[in-house]
């Protein structure tokens, strides 16, 4: 069989998609393959740290659904708890402003600064 024959053998999976982002490649080449003992090995813990550092991966949908944890929690658009505390913050501010208003226009003006 010549090299040319090989190239035109369409029976086999084709190469990866052309526009692949790094995250897509990393999650495939780093920790999803067949586990074969090598003489030199990357520590899996390092990979975990790496992925955290690169902010490529966050809590799985399952985990997020169960607990609503991780970045969902700090994003008011996504977390009820974060939004609730944002709401409390707004409420507190509102009360302060109302107090300032009720105590008179001059005080109000200074409270607005």
């Amino acid at each position, binding site marked *: 069989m010549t090299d040319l024959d090989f190239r035109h053998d369409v029976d086999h999976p084709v190469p990866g998609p052309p526009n692949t982002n790094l995250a*897509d490649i990393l999650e495939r080449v780093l920790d999803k393959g067949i586990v074969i003992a090598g003489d030199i090995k990357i520590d899996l813990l*390092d990979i975990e740290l790496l992925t955290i550092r690169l902010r490529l991966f966050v809590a*799985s949908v399952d985990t997020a659904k169960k607990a609503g944890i991780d970045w969902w929690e700090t994003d008011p658009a996504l977390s009820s708890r974060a939004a609730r505390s944002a709401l409390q913050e707004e*409420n507190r501010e509102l009360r302060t402003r109302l107090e300032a*208003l009720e105590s008179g226009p001059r005080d109000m003006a200074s409270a607005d600064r």
Partner: protein
Amino acid sequence: MTERSPKASDTTALYVYAVCRTEGSPALDGVSGVARDAPLRTLPLGSLTAIVQTVRAAEFTDEAWQERLTDEPELERYARAHHEVVSAVAAQAPTVPLPLATLYNAEDRAEVVLGNESARFHAALERIAHHAEWGVKVYATGSPGDVGGGAAQRPRTPSTPSIPSTPGDRERPAPGAGRAYLERKRNLQARREQQREESLRVAETVDTRVCRIAKASRRLRPHGPGAAGDHRVQVLNATYLVAEHRSAELELLVKDLRGSTGAGIELSGPWVPYSFVGEV
């Protein structure tokens, strides 16, 4: 290769990219791999063939990798180089990709270790024969920045110019203004909650429908905002092993799901089935 050189810098190691089933030698011209010193070559393993490259051991020590893992551009270079070799081989023969950085101190070591794994390689080749991997990502409808739109802006209540300087009832905000404001905030929050629930529901629907035409599936961790250079919220990052003759069906299904759910759905593939060669 097996002899130990007195100079550490001369010591070599063998980098293994993939194991394939081929009768000839895959054409790998123009693919350089992770190192420049030596070309890619094959290492016969009985009925299987490993795609390997001789590299300088000093550049591939545990310490060197740890350094590399924290250097994003370097890591990207290596990951893409590895991926390129795997893809090139897989285009020509049934292939089991090995993880990034599978290295042996010597060629005979690689022969022994990989030779002992031939049953697993054959099983993996059997499993992925005539199948390809496809990634499906679902993004929440309404990005965090979008949700609530202008209502999310902190209201300046009441703004200074709108307050008359003359004393009187008018200078106070209408009764219940604070309550109305809080009400608006609550509605906004409820809407966000609804959108989140809805997005997760869409994710489940997409996964269920795609699973029906897939042989196997895996959930990957959704990428955080910014990973793909945008700020959309990923609610599903899954990957599927799909028979080659069903790839058109998959593309149609995704198109259909985009229409019926209104969600952002990305399909990537076909990939060499990296995610399905291991024993799950």
